[in-house]
């Protein structure tokens, strides 16, 4: 089963058009809800039963998140879409926006209906110009077809969707930083609680979900929670988009059932380039711990299986490396990224990311010291769990895991002042 949900229109000519989406059952879920006046709690229950978990990386159960909203509270409530895709290795939301924007629009509408909201904002990263234009075209199409706007299909339910463009900041993928950014400020994460369900955009109750998460919702409603859940494995419902990059023959997005063996996914991506050995894999975006290739070969792609071997499914960004890659150099680049992107709010992250980068940089450049590996471990441990948002943890976890699994390579750099690869 491939490309069943978010990529359902992908085999069609001009998959992003409204007529294409409708030919594949698009907007039927919305029409059904509006015609039958489905109770809001039934929809939330359905999403809970589907096993859908946040696809942006955190994996929080989506139905539960929607259920936190006090639907009877007076005043505005908001649906906010996190299309600020920036986790290194991840490129799935870009393709949903480009190739199936209507699935996202329908998902936003269903969410809005379920939580009693009338306005949605899609926060797209500023570099995504083509996806932005594609999404805007789709919004116009939906509006002209009466599927979006005031009094949709004469149901009395009205909803507006606006697109917001970011301007380059990885941290805005963190949900409360994104809300700050949408309010026209620096993207610095908020302290929680209160969570966005209570105090979100403009201080109002807000559901904020990843693009892929919301684009999965229409099929859950149309084809049923059981159908969706049973595609996956226990605790990892549904299919998932995996962005496979690195030293593989056919890098790209693959929408496959959760729980698919990694070896099978690798095969879909054409296997390793030049038949080389799979040395290491980062299974869920650069923020999650790296795993040696041989461990990955026995892993299935779902939350629990990957957690068991010490990493995380994250955003589903699978970065595959063959044995021509120096692990010290890879970690140096990752460490630089977090140093560059730390928002500067919490001291352990602001100072620690720079410290880790400088130490790894000197190891890579042949001036590492014997005590550096312990020092790196120590700094990483002192960042973990001591920051407002998860960027600190995201910076620390790769460091600890690279040293754990590839200590020899780091030691060789320190001892011989050069690379062993």
């Amino acid at each position, binding site marked *: 089963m491939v490309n069943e949900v978010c990529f359902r229109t992908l085999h069609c000519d001009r998959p992003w058009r409204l007529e294409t989406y409708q030919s594949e059952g698009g907007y039927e879920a919305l029409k059904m809800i509006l015609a039958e006046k489905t109770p809001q709690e039934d929809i939330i229950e359905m999403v809970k039963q589907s096993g859908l978990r946040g696809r942006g990386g955190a994996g929080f159960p989506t139905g539960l998140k929607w259920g936190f909203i006090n639907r009877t509270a007076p005043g505005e409530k908001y649906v906010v879409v996190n299309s600020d895709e920036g986790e*290194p*290795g991840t490129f799935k939301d870009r393709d949903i926006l480009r190739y199936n924007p209507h699935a996202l629009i329908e998902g936003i509408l269903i969410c809005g209906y379920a939580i009693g909201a009338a306005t949605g904002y899609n926060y797209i990263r500023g*570099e995504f110009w083509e996806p932005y234009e594609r999404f805007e075209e789709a919004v116009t199409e939906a509006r002209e077809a009466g599927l979006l706007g005031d009094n949709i299909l004469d149901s009395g339910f009205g909803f507006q969707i606006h697109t*917001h*463009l970011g301007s380059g900041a990885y941290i805005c993928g963190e949900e*409360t930083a994104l809300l700050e950014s949408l309010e*026209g400020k620096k993207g610095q994460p908020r302290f929680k609680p209160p969570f966005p369900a209570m105090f979100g955009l*403009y201080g109002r109750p807000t559901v904020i979900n990843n693009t892929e998460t919301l684009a999965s919702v229409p099929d859950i409603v149309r084809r049923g929670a059981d159908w969706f859940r049973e595609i996956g494995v226990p605790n990892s419902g549904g299919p998932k988009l995996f962005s496979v990059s690195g030293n593989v023959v056919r890098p790209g997005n693959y929408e496959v059932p959760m729980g698919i063996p990694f070896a099978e996914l690798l095969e879909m991506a054409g296997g390793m380039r030049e038949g080389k050995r799979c040395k290491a894999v980062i299974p869920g975006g650069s923020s999650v711990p790296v795993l040696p290739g041989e461990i990955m070969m026995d892993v299935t792609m779902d939350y629990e299986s990957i957690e068991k071997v010490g990493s995380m499914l994250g955003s589903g960004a699978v970065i595959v490396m063959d044995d021509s890659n120096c692990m010290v150099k890879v970690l140096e680049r990752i460490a630089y990224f977090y140093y560059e992107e730390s928002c500067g709010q919490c001291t352990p992250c602001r100072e620690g990311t720079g410290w880790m980068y400088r130490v790894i940089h000197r190891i890579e450049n042949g001036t590492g010291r014997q005590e550096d590996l312990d020092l790196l471990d120590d700094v990483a441990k002192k960042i973990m769990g001591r920051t407002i948002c998860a960027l600190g943890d995201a910076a620390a976890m790769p460091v600890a895991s690279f040293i754990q699994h590839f200590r020899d390579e780091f030691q060789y750099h320190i001892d011989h002042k050069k690379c062993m690869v």
Partner: protein
Amino acid sequence: MSLRSEPMVRAQKFEDKESLFTREVREQIDTWVAKYPAEWKQSACMPALTIVQDMNGGYLTRDLMDQVADYLDMPPIAVYEVASFYSMYEHKPMGRHKICLCTNVSCMICGSDNILEHIRNRLGIGFGEVTPDGRFGLKEVECLGACGGAPMMQIGHTYYENLTPELVDQILDGLE
């Protein structure tokens, strides 16, 4: 962040908005302002900065940031904060074509170092620099979410993927 659900206030509003920018730019900013609640004009700060940066040939000045503050009734400091936080705003000229080359993990694994070397040799500039004729600027960027086409770069609104030195030459030759 402290919990605040109200916009940052400005002691005195700037009344003569028609004296700011051009009518075309004001209209563009207004389409963004219309997306947010009336009291939240500051939500349009980021798009407004992008619009005036584009109008100004790709970079911001103190005067332009002040005008954005005047136009959106924001304290100037709040605009400077935004303009200095996000990486897509420039504070000095970056050439007619800003080449944004990704060097993050997936691109690095797939050879972004070679692409960088090639661009350096061809244009004689490194990251953060502009060619003497002002035609090209080069900037290192973090992951742009196109790792399936690594190595990649962005120029203007366009993504260029699966780069090779030959392809880079073709692309750069095609830009005035």
